């Protein structure tokens, strides 16, 4: 194998912060905008430039408030209509036929129903973060003021509350289904040689550097210059049906008790763990197969390949599909892509027995190649066909977040193998999530943001 040296890593001062680091700010909101034209768009970006957080280490001086900016392809064209050399899936967008081959949003998740059935032309998403509620609302007001001054229209994606996608801070890093989230993200290292790149390295995420088999692009021409040191964000809002989830656990807990004994409450938690591959506290089933363990709640150093029968973790458990680790995969599915996840919950939790109300996950899935990384993983979520552990049918689905599509394209059953050679088979998992909307954005470099801010 050749050892081709890598160029130096990107200057963190030129990369938007969320690309290279996960934020721990407890307050955030995500504002969707439509530009009026180039002049207004430039004025809007220019007004926000001073608040854009780069990936530079902030040391002990953690910003109280900050923001990052994403542009859709339609938004980029507002600034320069000649930038046509972006990847096809970014240009066509997530509602396109090509992307829907992977995302498979149908029924209540269908693109026609996204954003409450409205048809906004989203040009820009501004991600605002604060250490306090006041810090967040203060910066959000500045963003709104900049929009008003420049004729930029805000689109409100929710029909409840403020209409904005605002993080529900009290949940911290938990999601509405009760799981601890955000445990495992790529380390975003920098390889010494191009050939030594592994999927968790930063050159798979930041555009403009060699060595990645996912080939983040564009890398040439004017579009390449525009995208250099940028990163894509698959922005996906998923409603979480907590009522359906809890009802499911209650419905099947007796079947679990009949198979393995214990109490109904223990059976509910066991079933919840088998769906996801981690107990609700975060402990992975591979390391803690019998009960959650505080010592393993943040564990990331484990693999699945030794669990050849799925006795610890079912093959279709969410974390085993979305991040298969060392699971053997077919050649066209190798290497396993990684995503940087920067998601957070929105909406207040339900007050049982009333499960009404809007709540779910604001998903920010960062990658250098929307098709080769995000869409490939999503296609596996909807149809488990990437590894021989799913043979011979190769058509089961991610137990938690798959779109429950027609039987001809995916089998919604869920099998939990047991040590006695028997198995618990759930004939048909219900849909636990509904896609509320998706947008593909580029998180441009700070240099690009400065450049377009002057494009009056």
């Amino acid at each position, binding site marked *: 194998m050749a050892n081709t040296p890598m160029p130096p890593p990107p200057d963190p001062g030129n990369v938007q912060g969320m690309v290279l680091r996960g934020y721990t700010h407890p307050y955030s909101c995500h504002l969707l905008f439509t530009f009026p034209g180039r002049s207004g768009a430039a004025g809007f970006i220019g007004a926000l430039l001073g608040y854009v957080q780069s990936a530079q280490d902030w040391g002990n001086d953690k910003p109280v408030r900050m923001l990052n900016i994403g542009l859709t392809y339609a938004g980029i064209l507002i600034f320069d209509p000649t930038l046509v050399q972006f990847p096809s899936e970014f240009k066509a967008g997530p509602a396109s036929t090509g992307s829907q081959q*992977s995302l498979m949003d149908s029924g209540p998740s269908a693109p026609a129903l996204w954003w409450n059935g409205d048809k906004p032309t989203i040009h820009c998403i501004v991600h605002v973060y604060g250490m306090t509620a006041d810090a967040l609302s203060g910066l959000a007001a500045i963003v709104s003021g900049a929009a008003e001054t420049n004729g930029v229209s805000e689109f409100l994606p929710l029909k409840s509350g403020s209409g904005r996608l605002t993080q529900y801070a009290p949940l911290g890093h938990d999601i509405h289904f009760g799981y601890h989230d955000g445990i495992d993200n790529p380390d975003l290292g920098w390889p010494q040689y191009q050939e030594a790149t592994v999927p968790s390295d930063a050159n798979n995420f930041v555009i403009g550097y060699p060595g990645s088999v*996912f080939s983040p692009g564009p890398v040439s021409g004017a579009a390449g210059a525009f995208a250099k040191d940028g990163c894509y964000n698959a922005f996906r809002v998923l409603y979480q049906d907590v009522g359906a989830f809890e009802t499911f656990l209650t419905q099947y807990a007796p079947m679990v008790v009949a198979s393995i004994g214990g109490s109904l409450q223990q059976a509910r938690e066991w079933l919840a763990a088998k769906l996801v591959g981690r107990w609700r506290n975060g402990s992975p089933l591979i390391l803690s197969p019998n009960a959650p363990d505080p010592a393993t709640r943040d564990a990331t150093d484990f693999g699945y390949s030794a669990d050849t029968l799925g006795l610890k973790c079912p093959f279709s458990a969410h974390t085993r599909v979305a991040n298969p680790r060392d699971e053997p995969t077919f050649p066209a599915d190798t290497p396993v892509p990684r995503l940087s996840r920067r998601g957070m919950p929105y909406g207040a939790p339900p007050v049982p027995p009333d499960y009404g109300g809007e709540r779910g996950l604001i998903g920010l899935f960062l990658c250098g190649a929307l*098709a*080769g990384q995000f869409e*490939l993983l999503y296609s596996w979520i909807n149809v488990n*066909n990437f590894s021989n552990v799913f043979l011979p049918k190769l058509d089961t689905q991610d137990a938690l977040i798959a779109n429950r599509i027609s039987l001809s394209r995916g089998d919604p059953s869920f099998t939990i193998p047991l040590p006695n050679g028997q198995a618990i088979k759930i004939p048909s998992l219900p849909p636990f999530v509904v896609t509320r909307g998706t947008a593909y954005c580029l998180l441009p470099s700070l240099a690009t943001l400065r450049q377009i801010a002057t494009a009056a």
Partner: protein
Amino acid sequence: MANPLTLYVPIKQDPDTQLKAQLAYDNFVSSVQAGLDTSNIVHYARLALIPNPGGEGILAICLITTFDGPMNPYLKYFWNNGALQSVFTGLASIALNPPNPPVSDLTGFENFINDNNLNTPDDLYNAYGQTVLQIRAQFPPQA
């Protein structure tokens, strides 16, 4: 669930280009055999030479395939396979209207394929719904 790709590329009319098109046709199966075997997602693939209306010379090359699953996520496999990449970049290089800039990376390759694909997933008739992997699991290839 299979999908169609019908890559239609009108080509230049000079003798060198015409010869390259004929060679691509003559060597197609041998040049893609190993790569497509390993992909496990392509049911059938063939290259067709479209004659000029007058019957003399080649008007265009047509690459016709039927494959499993979404197209764009798997284009990186074809781009990263040296033999398959050569076939596609070869087609792009003899195009009457070659991509500008020339196909030299995965983004350019994706755009070349999508810009010249005449079909969408809804266009395909399926006699069966099984994938290549499902069929091979039931009927392992003979040695």
